[in-house]
């Protein structure tokens, strides 16, 4: 049973607009959430994270929102750039140090110029 779900396999956005990637989870013990970005032929790289004690974390163009009651998080990219085109993985951990991650299946983001 998938504990972390990314229900949109792909998303296409115009350059300069906002990209919103969504993630739902079922395990209420998850304490720490992360987003990873993956280019073809490379391993995933860490993008941004959020602890369960927060509802928002921002880093430049990237903002992650957490709604614990809905067991939902989202990644906002504003403004979107063609270089943001990649696969985005949502991940969650029961450990506050973010170890032993459970991943979603990923969302392919295409930013059109």
């Amino acid at each position, binding site marked *: 049973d998938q504990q972390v779900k990314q229900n949109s396999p792909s998303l296409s956005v115009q350059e300069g607009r906002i990209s919103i990637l969504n993630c739902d989870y079922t395990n209420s013990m998850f304490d720490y959430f992360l987003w990873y970005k993956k280019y073809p032929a490379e*391993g*995933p790289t*860490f993008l941004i994270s959020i602890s369960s004690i927060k509802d928002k974390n921002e880093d430049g163009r990237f903002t992650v929102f957490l709604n614990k009651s809905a067991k939902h998080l989202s990644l906002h990219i504003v403004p979107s750039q063609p270089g943001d085109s990649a696969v985005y993985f949502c991940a969650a951990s029961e450990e506050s*140090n973010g170890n*032993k991650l459970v*991943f979603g299946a990923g969302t392919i983001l295409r930013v059109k110029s």
Partner: protein
Amino acid sequence: DAMVIQNPRYQVTQFGKPVTLSCSQTLNHNVMYWYQQKSSQAPKLLFHYYDKDFNNEADTPDNFQSRRPNTSFCFLDIRSPGLGDAAMYLCATSSLEGNGYTFGSGTRLTVV
């Protein structure tokens, strides 16, 4: 640059023929993980090490084994690969303090 290196990038093996995938790290991280990712699916944790302490996931088939001879190296052994074991295998490391994983580039395994 400190990094996680997986060799080889692509591995073709015959059905039933043992194969070993390797992972090395220069980050001196305590924790090393092996994930299996099949096409369009989520990466699935197979096992991980906290230093030399091996932790197997309950649903990891017995066909998959791992060795960690020292901090820097970790191996994934598939004793008798089946067609269903064809996948991308991702190695990752993290420190006990957390702050997320560092991934290798992965090894894509093909079983013929």
